[in-house]
């Protein structure tokens, strides 16, 4: 960190703007770390969530039940409990030692999978049966109906809830700092313990999170409102 001169105006001010200027790049770096954690768990959660969604639509009752119980349990558990349970119990049960980052990624992926499978399911269910039947009557196969008719329509329905969920995922990713994973809120708390400039640090961190999450949630809101307008007309 840059040595501060006594005659710099920020040094005497109770809100040290020069401190923010010096630390801004570091915060952007850790913000990128946070975002990549979110992206990784979104991808992992998307894959697991797609499998859970398929299990839900399967004709085998056991698969339906398993998917239902898994999704329900993960959604009902607080994220932090999930994180700590996996952190303290998974290595003991499986005998595989995991570092904090992989435990965090696994728990966020599970969290994402439960919510994403519900989003996928709602999107697929929103497409009427008539669409499928029309596809079959044209002689398309099951996969072609899914690929050409259902998915293009379902993705449009899913975009809004997906954006909303990404906000929740970014918020949940801050909880990984409880495992000392180096993401933005962990950097904030360690820098705060070092410099005691909590006001500057947490105001800046809050502002960065706010900009990203607010942009996403208002995009989702606007998208959903426009869709409703289209559907109403």
């Amino acid at each position, binding site marked *: 960190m840059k040595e501060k001169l006594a005659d710099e105006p920020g040094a005497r001010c109770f809100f040290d703007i020069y401190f923010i200027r010096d630390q801004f790049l570091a915060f952007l770096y850790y913000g990128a770390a946070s975002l990549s954690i979110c992206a990784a768990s979104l991808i992992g959660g998307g894959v697991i969530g797609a499998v859970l969604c398929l299990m839900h639509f399967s004709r085998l009752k056991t698969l339906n039940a398993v998917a239902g119980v898994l999704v329900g349990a993960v959604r009902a558990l607080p994220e932090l409990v999930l994180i700590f349970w996996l952190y303290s119990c998974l290595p003991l049960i499986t005998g595989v030692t995991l570092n904090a980052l992989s435990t965090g990624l696994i728990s966020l992926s599970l969290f994402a999978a439960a919510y994403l499978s519900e989003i996928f399911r709602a999107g697929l269910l929103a497409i009427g049966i008539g669409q499928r039947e029309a596809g079959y009557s044209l002689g398309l196969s099951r996969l072609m109906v899914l690929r050409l008719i259902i998915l293009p329509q379902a993705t449009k329905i899913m975009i809004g809830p997906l954006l909303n969920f990404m906000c929740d995922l970014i918020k949940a990713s801050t909880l990984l700092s409880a495992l000392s994973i180096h993401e933005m809120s962990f950097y904030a708390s360690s820098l705060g313990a070092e410099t005691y400039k909590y006001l500057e640090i*947490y105001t800046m961190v809050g502002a960065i999170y706010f900009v990203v999450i607010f942009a996403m949630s208002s995009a989702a809101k606007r998208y959903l409102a426009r869709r409703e307008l289209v559907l109403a007309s």
Partner: protein
Amino acid sequence: MSFVIRSRSSPTTPYDTLAGVIIAGIVLLTLLFGVKWSFVLALDFSVVSMYARPLFTGFLMTLGISLFSLFAGSIAGILLAVAYRAGSSPVRWLVSAHIEIWRNTPLLVQIFWVHFALPMLTGISTTIMVSGVLTLTLQASSYLAEIIRAGVASVPKTQWEAAESLGLHPGIIWRKIVLPQALRVMLPPMVNTAFSFFKGSTVLSVLGVTELLRMGNIISLHSHKPIEIMTTVGLSYLAVGAIFTLISGFIERKISR
């Protein structure tokens, strides 16, 4: 409701059976080779009864924190919604800013801001408990204000006009016409919010408030039995989740009737 239509138009394929076999295979292989059965079978859940009292204290703490912050938050939320409805445009702008700020930042950052940064502004230092509950209350107020605002806005304007043209007193309009209709819209998201604040109370453990999760962490370190203790903690959260599901199902049935 099922996505797969069981009709003649759906060509039957062996996909489902194949998927079932593959998933069952994966699960079986994981259970066979991924789990240390000698360890899992030796688990001794009688430890939990030894620590039942502190765990229950933690559970009561969690309940108390979430109930209190929901209660205080709903009062603040009602006031905010009323201010938004009745206030001039700067008041509306302030209320919206409050709602958006508390809804669009992570709870953890809010808690740290309130605990560490706010005392620098106000000069009053707060204990971890006070700042945790204060944060939850502020966040609850913003979520509930948004729900109440949307609920009241969902009552069509014609209802107000009809009631006014009948010459009804504003108090009666609220009590007999607006609120019964708005509550139908408001109750389901309110129950969801209540549950999410019950879940959110775990974040206070990061500050050091000894609610159920932190109590579980402490005990599992003390007793060297993390699986038994943490699983019990998780199951108690799930039990409360099940109760909330029952309540919201009950309310939805009441409303749709």
